[in-house]
């Protein structure tokens, strides 16, 4: 059997007494999409941080293509094809939208032999080649071309979220980590995001997607992983996971704002 693209084994992370990850393990292959759900404070974003290298795990390992990257920082992992969006957008405020995306297209996209990465460079632009083409393409698929020359600091929240995705796409990722990109979207915009994620996955990108808009998630993910208090309480087939007693209990026992639109047990 071939090595999965991403393998997370026994990851643990705590901040003082607060445990945000405890013995978390999962795998993800190229062309697979994993949904990450759980109540607020369950440790979803922390897990993304550990995979992206923004945070170092206290214990456990992260491997990419069988290569141990646990000790590598975020930039080195970006060089190996990991890209992410931030839940609270972090635009380069004094740069324009285009320049923001150009940063993504100019650095991580330069790793040697990375030309085979699908998704962001499905247009065939080589790794050292046209960063500008890749940047523009990323703006096009996120519907941001009209704002290309706008200083990103003056964007409204929704466009900042799009910019997060555009920047990540411009790197030409093999593993894309998305942190709540659908919240606040209209019924017209939601299918676009779902379509985009599905197309990336079909192009061979591995996707981990944290999302509270559950019906959007269920439309595209192959598997679902539910976290609560830093522990994996269920993972596997999406519809089985959201119907499992532990998950239902966690959701009903949590605050109202984290209960998804579509009630668990009644998938769309």
């Amino acid at each position, binding site marked *: 059997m071939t090595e999965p693209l991403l393998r997370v084994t026994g990851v643990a992370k705590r901040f003082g007494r607060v445990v945000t990850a405890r013995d978390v393990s999962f795998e993800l292959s190229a062309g697979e999409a994993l949904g990450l759900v759980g109540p607020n404070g369950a440790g979803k974003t922390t897990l993304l941080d550990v995979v992206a290298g923004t945070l170092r795990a206290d214990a456990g390992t992260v491997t990419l293509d069988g290569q141990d990257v646990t000790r590598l920082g975020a930039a080195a992992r970006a060089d190996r094809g990991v890209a992410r969006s931030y839940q609270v957008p972090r635009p380069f405020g004094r740069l*324009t939208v285009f320049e923001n995306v150009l940063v993504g297209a100019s650095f991580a996209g330069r790793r040697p032999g990375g030309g085979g990465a699908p998704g962001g460079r*499905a247009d065939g632009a080589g790794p050292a080649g046209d960063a500008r083409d890749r940047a*523009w393409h990323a703006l096009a698929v996120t519907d941001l071309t009209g704002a290309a020359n706008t200083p990103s600091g003056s964007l409204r929240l929704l466009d900042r979220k799009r910019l997060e995705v555009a920047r990540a796409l411009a790197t030409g990722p093999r593993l894309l980590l998305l942190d709540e990109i659908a919240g606040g979207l209209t019924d017209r915009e939601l299918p*676009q995001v779902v379509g985009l994620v599905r197309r990336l996955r079909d192009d061979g990108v591995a996707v981990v997607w944290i999302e509270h808009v559950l*019906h959007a998630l269920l439309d595209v993910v192959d598997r679902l992983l539910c976290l609560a208090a830093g522990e994996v309480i269920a993972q596997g087939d999406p519809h089985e996971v959201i119907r499992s007693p532990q998950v239902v209990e966690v959701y009903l026992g949590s605050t109202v704002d984290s209960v998804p639109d579509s009630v668990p047990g009644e998938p769309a």
Partner: protein
Amino acid sequence: MSAPNTTADAAVPAAPPATPTVTRGGRGSVVGGGVLVLVVVLLAAVVPYVVTLGALSSLVMLFALVILGTTWNLLAGYGGMVSVGQQAYVGVGGYALIQLADAVGAPPWAAVLAAGLVGAVLALPTSYLVFRLAGGYFAIGTWVVAEVFRLVTMQIGGLGGGSGLSLSAFRGTDRVDRVAFVYWFALALMVAVVLGTYLLMRSRVGLGLTAIRDDRVAASSLGVAVDRGRRIVYVAGSAGAALAGALIALSTLGVTPGSIYSVNWTAAMIFIVVVGGIGTIEGPLVGAVLYWALQQALAPLGTWYLVVLGGVAVAVVLLAPRGLWGLVAGRFQIFPTTYRVRI
């Protein structure tokens, strides 16, 4: 609320659209660049023959101020590092010049360049120390480091202790020849530093640096090597300060620890960059000319000079928060480092 139809694969273009033209600068930068070239030619070929030796020496100070402002802007405006301790490298540059020219016997031009190198070599290990600090702590920490540099310099035997050193390499050289040499050399060095900074900021590395300035965490997620980028800026900026310090010592024929390591150098850099326009190549040029002109005009007024300087700084910060160049930067760039898409 009913679940919307989420099966449509809408709005994702099948074929990527053609990238429109991306421009960097326009007619403004051609005209502005032409004017600047003309100014440099005038400074090189005409000014030395029509002004006094005293005026030439004071122009050397202007060129040193441009180098100081440009390199501090590199640190604070592009690297996001607000250092209050760049006088450490001004001092190192001054002392290194005199030691290299007098004790080692290097020709003055080579001694200046080597003094810049000494600044870079000292900045590298220092960066590992000060990079442990962030924000305000970085500012104070760099100031402390500068004081340590000054105190250590005074303790080293052969560096003149508290009274400093004077430069003897020009002994026997005609005064006119000396001032003319220092003037042209300083002019060339200033042009090289400004052009070098521009080319750096226009490059891919420069794009990464502005990303680091705006958001370090996001920059690293996109593959920008944050620590290496900041280190490059700190070392280059410190080398620039050392070059300026060497020029100042070369022009004034000596150093004292109290003046060459003075925090006033950094105060001048901050004035030049903040009043001129932070984060632009042109801003420090404007700021340096203004600072120098005020210095020249107000020198007879004694302490009032500082009061006026402070008043100007307050007025600019209130009325033009992006500095004087910031008033035009949106429409006009002489040194375009930004990208504009023609939609």
